[in-house]
């Protein structure tokens, strides 16, 4: 059985987990990532002072366990390369978004044509939807205004018609790749 199949099986039985089982067999990668993140945050907060580790190791352990209890690690098939690629895309998108809005705010003619659009998400609930909504709000021109079940109310600063839907589909596909979920890639833009 290859790792992809294993992940799928675990996801499908996710609803049957007992309340007490906060650590699942396939979730070690998420668990390690959280411990590394908390450890690095402590290291940064204490300016890398080795004397702080006496206090830091128990704090990191406690925070990690509390985090596992509050939100059990899932077995998403994410890979570090995809995380780096998504971070690059996100950085480029937020720089572009910042420039775009700053230009519209400063231009004497203030070229905006705001519009609300609705978008039905095909990502599963939980972390993938949350990441999608956060990144969507920082991408050029779009802002997540409300969420009604699986449907998003998106405010766009510029009415670009079908272009908005296509952009959201593309972003959703990138988020699905980040989590190792197999959403179909969007068809190329017609614009």
């Amino acid at each position, binding site marked *: 059985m290859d790792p992809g199949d294993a992940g799928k099986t675990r996801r499908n039985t996710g609803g049957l987990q007992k309340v007490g089982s906060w650590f699942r067999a396939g979730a070690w990668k998420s668990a390690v990532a959280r411990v590394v993140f908390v450890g690095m945050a402590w290291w940064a907060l204490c300016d890398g002072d080795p004397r702080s580790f006496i206090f830091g190791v128990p704090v990191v352990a406690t925070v990690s366990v509390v985090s596992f209890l509050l939100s059990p690690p899932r077995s998403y098939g994410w890979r570090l390369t995809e995380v780096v690629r998504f971070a690059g895309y996100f950085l480029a998108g937020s720089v572009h978004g910042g420039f775009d809005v700053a230009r519209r705010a400063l231009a004497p003619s203030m070229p905006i044509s705001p519009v609300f659009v609705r978008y039905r998400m095909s990502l599963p609930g939980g972390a993938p939807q949350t990441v999608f909504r*956060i990144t969507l709000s920082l991408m050029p021109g779009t802002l997540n205004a409300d969420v009604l079940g699986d449907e998003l109310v998106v405010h766009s600063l510029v009415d670009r018609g079908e272009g908005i839907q296509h952009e959201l589909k593309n972003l959703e596909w990138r988020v699905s790749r980040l989590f190792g979920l197999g959403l179909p890639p969007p068809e190329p833009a017609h614009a």
Partner: protein
Amino acid sequence: MSPLDFLSAAFLFGGGAFCLAGTVGVLRFPDVYCRLHALTKVDNLGLGLVVVGLALQSGSWATALKLLLVWFFVLISSAFTCQLIARAALRGRGAAPWGGRREP
């Protein structure tokens, strides 16, 4: 001044310029939803540039990482607050969106 100082000054001035543009956007944009665009995107980019400029000056990896963490948490909290404000404006207050169009 070393080249590093110039680079970090450029990032700091750039960040300040974007924060100013964000404020101009808040003052000029016609409704609450458009103003949120200025607050989230432009100010996040401004803060990001300031953080890079300061990290270049910090001279320590731990401090640079601390600054990056500050930016990361501000990104997340501003995305969430922006959504909460937009939802409150849509549902509770029923703030009417501005319906105009301004072509370039």
